[in-house]
């Protein structure tokens, strides 16, 4: 049983939460220009690391709000919890975000049409 510190409600048992899978998957805005293989990166392919994993969680039986979590899938250690729209602050979390294969995909590139729009939409 994990004890997860909800950013809004404090430490609660895992059974109050739902896991939303991999974090930081941006929806491609120009999906019609992507090939089927490129769109599959967004739609089906999920990171499945043995080690630190950046994922979304939701406090479904509490405040019902989403947040991000950096958790080690081999040890279940929770390294950090950070808000939706934000990026990890820990060294390991930053490395996991930067080194993910997803950063190089056409699907992710298609999610960033312009800088001004990106500031409003960042994260997710």
């Amino acid at each position, binding site marked *: 049983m994990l004890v997860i510190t909800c950013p809004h409600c404090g430490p609660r048992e895992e059974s109050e939460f*739902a896991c939303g899978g991999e974090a930081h998957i941006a929806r491609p805005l120009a999906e019609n220009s992507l090939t089927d*293989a490129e769109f599959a990166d967004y*739609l*089906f392919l999920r990171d*499945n690391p*043995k080690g630190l994993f950046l994922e979304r969680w939701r406090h479904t039986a509490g405040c019902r709000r989403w947040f991000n979590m950096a958790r080690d*899938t081999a040890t279940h250690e929770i390294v950090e919890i950070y808000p939706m729209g934000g990026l990890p602050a820990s060294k390991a979390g930053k490395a996991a975000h930067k080194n993910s294969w997803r950063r190089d995909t056409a699907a992710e590139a298609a999610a960033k049409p312009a800088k001004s729009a990106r500031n409003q939409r960042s994260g997710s």
Partner: protein
Amino acid sequence: MATDQPDRGLRGLPGGKQKYSAFALAKKAMNYHQDWQRAWRDAPPKDEYDVVIIGGGGHGLATAYYLAAVHGVKRVAVVEKGWLGGGNTGRNTTIIRSNYLWDESAAIYEHALKLWEGMSQDLNFNVMFSQRGVLTIAHSEHELREMSRRVHAIRLNGIDSEILGPSEIKTFVPIINTDQTIRYPVMGGFLQKRGGTARHDAVAWGYARAADDLGVDIIQNCEVTGLRRNGRRIVGIETSRGFIKTRKVGCVVAGHSSVVAGMADIRLPLASRPLQALVSEPIKPVLDTVIMSNAVHMYISQSDKGEMVLGAGVDKYNSYAQRGSFPVPEHMIAAAVELFPVLSRLRMLRHWGGIVDTCPDASPIISKTDVEGLYFNCGWGTGGFKATPGSGHVFADLIANDRPNRIAAPYALDRFQTGLLIDEHGAAGVAH
């Protein structure tokens, strides 16, 4: 479909290994059972093989066996980082059935079931395959109708399946609670009589012994640390016991598929999740079939030792830790006790978890990859055990011929680009 029989190849230990029989048992008794032959050699890795299978579980060993028995491949090795059948093969709840909704699923699981039906003879090893029936319960009107549709689809594929009402279920399973006032009352169910259970360890041991008889090297305590490529072609594997040269690698590593695929820069649409199971203390025989329930989410059978064997769905987050969370077994025990009040005072004997590789469409991946000579058989998720012989049989065919056969073709990786998914979520008879 029902008339197609799988090619079983060479059967009954043609390599000359000592056979197991009642006569052999009596003969060895004269000598206090001191001179039984080793079931398989402790093979050191050779420098080169025609095919190397990564993963010494049921699926990997079956693949190696059928490569030798059906396709006559001479130099085959199975490398396993731990011991044979120490992963999900030894951790599942041993349920076997082929009552799937979609044609593609029916084809592969029925292919497997036919191989199960002759497996003990083929391998000269008693895998204790017991066709005790698998009964899936419906708890609502909607579920009953959905079940009826599924039963008809299954029967159209030539697979046995029948609907039972609550009174028939009570006759078939006397200990079940059919009181209509409980939270999830038993409203009906569907039964596959040819389904059942088998002894999971015996499947690994039987395949290992028969493969060894045909010259397959089984190399335990040998962890793969890298896949060596030359351009887009595989040329060998790096292991904890040195480099092994080979031009064909079949990867059957279940929960660690993403990790091994990463060694060749291949990404798979998999999530590795813990799947938990438990057994009670052994009791006298009370349940001679397998019961599954989708709505309350639990499956239960009684082992030959008398333990009640329980399983449920996967944990909700990715993990490689081979242990799950407490709420999952708590939920499955609550469901079991409501359906079978007679079990309420049993104590739990053992509880464990295995890491299963789940696919977005809850169907497996049996596929070539972008790397020439590298093949993957993964994504079996929560339901791999029942498919063991069929999976190994079609995967061996894929590796030997470098093209998928009719059964394996729909399970290629490219379905996640074309959108031709085989959506067995829930349709498989148990939620994932």
